[in-house]
């Protein structure tokens, strides 16, 4: 059985996520009755959000490369900014049936809140900075944000990438809390 191939487009301007089939070979299925889309965070045994698609209109939209399933951040995460996390997406087609198909895993990161915290922290900066530690701290936060943006790009999931992302995130999170912005 082949695996479901799909792609996702995260549109930060319009605050939407588009999920589209990417030329999967469904010849082994008699029909597509159900598409389950799972969003997972750090704990892979649970899911943060599960989207179940079982109506023909949405299934057709998913299969049509020029359309796709479009969701707003609000509808998935309950907020117009996805909570900071490194998200892993998986799709299961006809879950629980004899011809169930699993998918590849894609991942992307969201860093809205931590960016805001870093920028707010920078605004509250007292200048001139006269100690090395503070100087390096502020400098490295900007560097870490750039690095995390790179790691947050939509791409095939890898454990290595997730660990790097979480290490960078935890560092900013802890130090900004220490500084009590």
């Amino acid at each position, binding site marked *: 059985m082949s695996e479901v191939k799909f792609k996702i487009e995260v549109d930060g301007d319009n605050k939407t996520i588009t999920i589209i089939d990417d030329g999967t070979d469904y010849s082994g299925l008699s029909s597509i009755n159900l598409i389950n889309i799972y969003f997972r965070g750090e704990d892979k045994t649970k899911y943060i959000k599960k989207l179940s698609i079982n109506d023909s209109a949405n299934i057709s939209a998913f299969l049509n490369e020029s359309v796709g399933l479009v969701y707003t951040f609000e509808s998935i995460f309950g907020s117009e900014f996805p909570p900071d996390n490194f998200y892993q997406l998986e799709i299961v087609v006809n879950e629980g049936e004899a011809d169930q198909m699993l998918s590849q895993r894609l991942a992307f990161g969201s860093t809205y809140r931590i960016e805001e915290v870093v920028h707010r922290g920078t605004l509250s900066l007292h200048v001139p900075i006269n100690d090395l530690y503070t100087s390096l701290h502020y400098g490295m936060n900007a*560097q*870490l944000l750039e690095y995390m943006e790179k790691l947050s790009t939509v791409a095939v999931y890898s454990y290595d990438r997730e660990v790097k992302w979480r290490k960078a995130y935890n560092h900013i999170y802890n130090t900004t809390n220490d500084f009590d912005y």
Partner: protein
Amino acid sequence: MISTTRINYELLRCINIRYKIIELYTDAILIGHITYIHKYAKDVMTLYALEKALYNAVYYNFNQSEIEDIIYKIREYINALDINSRVDYFTTRYPSVICITDDNGPYVDTSSPDSGTGDEDGYDGSDGDDLKDGTIPLTNWRSQMITISENGQTVIPNLNFNIGDVDIDTVLLEVQGDDPDYTTTGNGYHIIENTLYWHNFYDLKIGMVVKIRWRVE
């Protein structure tokens, strides 16, 4: 004029190494090693500054020698970072950094030149006279230095070996005077029989020295 390909190559290399050091920084944070935290933070920001300097030099149409100066500074700084063994990029391109080296090649060949008499480390107990007078080559590595005689030269004939007779994975090429990197086989040049064809992203110039090394069995 320096090609866009080369400048992109330098910038990308710098960015990738900077990201690698950011990773090392997060590791240093985890173990709380304050010296390394400061060192990596300083390195990251210096590389960032150099990277922007190169970017701006291109943007504001600096002349070629000024851009080459910046590229040289970037390479000099990266080389001075002494993180070579920790950066994947270097471990593949600079095998000599993580191995014991000698003048004749990137690896010390510990096999005995006088086979049968050496101990398991290859030391045969001789006083070295036979090595000094050249009767026995020190290692299985051979090298050849070729001075470029015309600008834009792309064909270098008369190599001291025939590519069919050596293990191609051992062939290393280094251009002295411009590019301190080893040029990888299949990327910047190819060899047919005993002639080298250069098709790297920069041109060879008069006075540059191409050093080629290979290993014989």
